[in-house]
């Protein structure tokens, strides 16, 4: 009897295993990038989506429906966004059904480095492990232009040849709406649009719904532009004469972006009388702005009543700042300044309403940096010519090669979070 048991149990199990629901067939583009919207269509099969979804990335991190900004159009159509912070590599979208076992949709997640080089090409450099090839965004000549990556990492704004384009990133980047004619000195990609400043105006161009619309306000002498993560506040670095003494100064003006653009600091905040500043960055929560010029780094705390009081950190020697990068919100509120003269990347952190250099927070490079950007978390990427290095900004140490390199010298760098 006991010897018959294995036989009986085996015979009983076989039909159960064999008669279950057949395997899921998945078709379409499975190579996706951070910030990209993925839409799942249940073309065949019973029991549609319940709306619950979970993404398990290559590092076994789990992202729930809220983190994925999941949107269930109907029982057979569900979309979600590949979340920032996801580990590149094999991932599985676990999609719950109304009845039955969940669907498991395999995906390959890629994190892109986007580099505007001195030849005007926007190079697409997926970080390892990558399932999409290295290449360049075709059809855009961005020579002398600018690029800006949105906070979610899913959209890239490009201003070049007096044309403004917003691209949805993916294995093949596509414009979200037709390009518009727009000139400017600096751009920032915001949720749903692009903020552009020129010699005469500050303009927000909305690209929502596949069409474009604009709001703007006048200004003069824009040199650089920054905004917070939500796109509600912007900082413009310009040259102005705030006290009407006929001497130009480095000026910082804060604007609220809403249904209209409102100047918050009037007159502008005067930083110094040597108008050499060229770069500005804003904390993701909009509470502070940093400005770098040739002799000092300025921190301006905005979360106080009254006139902001700039706090300056002097450079030990003259600097040629090539960029400021601000770590994503919640990552220690760190920012980094790349200086071509000293071939250093200097790291700063905010201390309440003050800001201070990191102890030992300067990373030396063997060649002059040309651009820098934060990727996921506190991982900082620095371009020096065609080489791209990386290190953790909270533990500044010798930089290592990022595993990708540009075809030509990089002038602007962006890395998906």
């Amino acid at each position, binding site marked *: 009897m*006991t*010897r*018959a048991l*294995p*036989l*009986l149990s*085996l*015979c009983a199990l*076989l*039909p159960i295993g*064999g*008669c279950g*629901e*057949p*395997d*899921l*067939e*998945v*078709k*379409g*583009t*499975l190579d996706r990038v951070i910030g990209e919207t*993925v*839409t*799942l*269509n*249940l*073309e*065949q*099969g*019973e029991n549609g989506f319940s709306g619950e979804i979970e993404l398990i990335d290559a590092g076994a991190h789990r992202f729930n429906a809220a983190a994925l900004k999941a949107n269930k159009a109907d029982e057979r159509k569900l979309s979600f966004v590949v979340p920032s912070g996801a580990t590149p590599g094999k991932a599985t979208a676990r*999609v719950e059904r109304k009845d039955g076992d969940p*669907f498991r*949709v395999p*995906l390959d997640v890629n994190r892109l480095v986007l580099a505007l080089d001195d030849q005007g090409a926007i190079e697409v450099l997926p970080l390892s492990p990558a399932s999409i090839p290295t290449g360049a965004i075709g059809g855009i000549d961005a020579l002398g232009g600018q690029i800006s990556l949105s906070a979610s990492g899913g959209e890239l704004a490009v201003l070049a040849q007096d044309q403004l384009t917003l691209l949805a990133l993916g294995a093949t980047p596509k414009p979200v709406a037709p390009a518009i004619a727009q000139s400017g000195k600096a751009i920032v990609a915001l949720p749903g649009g692009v903020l552009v400043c020129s010699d005469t105006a500050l303009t927000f161009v909305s690209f929502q719904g596949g069409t474009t619309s604009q709001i703007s306000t006048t200004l003069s002498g824009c040199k650089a532009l920054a905004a917070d993560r939500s796109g509600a506040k912007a900082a413009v670095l310009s040259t102005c004469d705030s006290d009407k003494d006929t001497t130009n100064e480095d000026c910082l003006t804060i604007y609220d972006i809403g249904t209209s653009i409102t100047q918050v600091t009037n007159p502008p905040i005067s930083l110094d009388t040597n108008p050499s500043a060229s770069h500005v960055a804003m904390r993701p929560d909009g509470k502070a702005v940093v400005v770098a010029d040739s002799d000092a780094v300025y921190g301006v705390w905005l979360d106080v009543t009254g006139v902001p009081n700039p706090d300056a950190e002097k450079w030990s020697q003259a600097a040629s700042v090539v960029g400021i990068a601000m770590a994503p919100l919640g990552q220690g509120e760190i920012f980094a300044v790349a200086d071509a003269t000293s071939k250093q990347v200097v790291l700063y952190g905010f201390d309440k309403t003050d800001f201070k250099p990191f102890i030992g927070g300067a990373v030396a490079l063997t060649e002059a940096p040309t651009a820098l950007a934060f990727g996921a978390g506190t991982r900082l990427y620095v371009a020096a010519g065609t080489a791209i290095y990386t290190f953790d900004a909270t533990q500044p140490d010798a930089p290592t090669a990022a595993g990708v390199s540009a075809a030509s010298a990089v002038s602007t760098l962006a890395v998906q979070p």
Partner: protein
Amino acid sequence: MKVSRSLTLLSVLLPGLLEPTAAAQEIAVIPAGSGPGLGPTAAVGRAIVKIANKGRRRRAKLVYVLPDLPAENPRLGRKAGKLMSAAARAFQMMEYGKAVELAEKAEKIYKDVAKSGKLEGYVESQHLIAASAFFDGQMARAKGAMNDAYLADPRPPPAKRFSPQVQDLYNQVVSEPPAHGAVRLGSAPPGALVWFHHKLVGPAAGTIRLRAGLYLVRAYLPGHGVYQRWFRVQAHKTRDLMIPLKQDKTAEAETMVQLRAESAEAEPGATLNQVALNVGASQVILLTSGDNCTPQQCRINMGWTKEAKWHRMGQAVYQPGGARRAALALVGRKRPTVARRTNRQTENPLAPIVPPGARACSLDSDCGFREQCIRGQCGSVTPFYQKWWFWTLIGVGVAGATVGIVLPLTRPDAPVISVE
């Protein structure tokens, strides 16, 4: 007085072996070497037992009388008894989980009690655990407990207390081919004798194979205290058992001293005959060590009793690794052939005995249709189509083929998701 006390103790240690059997054909092999001679006599004794038992029937066993074990703490026994009563009540109320829990608590106490020589409580608790687990659907646990009980006492659970289903469980455990494990033995200092439950396995050296399960291990070396611990032999695994002995002034059992003294006498003495009677042996092979014996070289003296007289005396030199050679020198170098063994059964007491009704053989051709010569006896051969695995394979094949045919006809369409 001391002799009788030691023999009483032996009766406790060797339950079931005391009753002199009518057909007492067994041989007690007693390693009685003194000091460093104990290990060599035990090694040679083990080899003699191995030679004697090289048939289907077990005829010889090692025997050694231990000194007194620690006295039982009656308080522990009472506490365990109360737990067992509560477990039995839970069993009657069909609260099998609770019964297992209580019986396990009792078992823990009985394990301590067993170190004073009484295994009955332990066996009883294992029977109750097995029965409760069986009715609770925990088959593996039930079999494990029944197996552990069987190792300590091969008798079935009392029929008055346990239902036929529990008796069936016992029969199942006993009839199934047992899993074995190995134990690599050692002692510090070397030369100790080792028991697994009541069975003396020989000196603590080398590797032995045993039926898997839980054993009460005892070890003894004169001049040291009796070492006791519970030890589980794991199926298909080899475990190390290094026995640390503590020096102790506990005297060697008087019986062993007497046996050594009687080995030099013209006739086997009263102690030797009493030991033979108590262990149900018709013959005793008493092994003593000569002077200047060391674990590296030892002269072994053998006195072999039969019908209360010295049947054979012998001497051999033992050296490490040469126990079998010494054993053969003592009890006979040539192993008789099967035919001769059958004919000369009365002449050579070590010759395996063919049970009545069995036919002796030396080749398969000596046996009949569908029979094989197995260990000198003709036995039937089960054809492959009467093996369980054959029908399992047939069943799996049929089920697989059925699924292969039916599945494509009944399977719903595979779900399809397009990713955009």
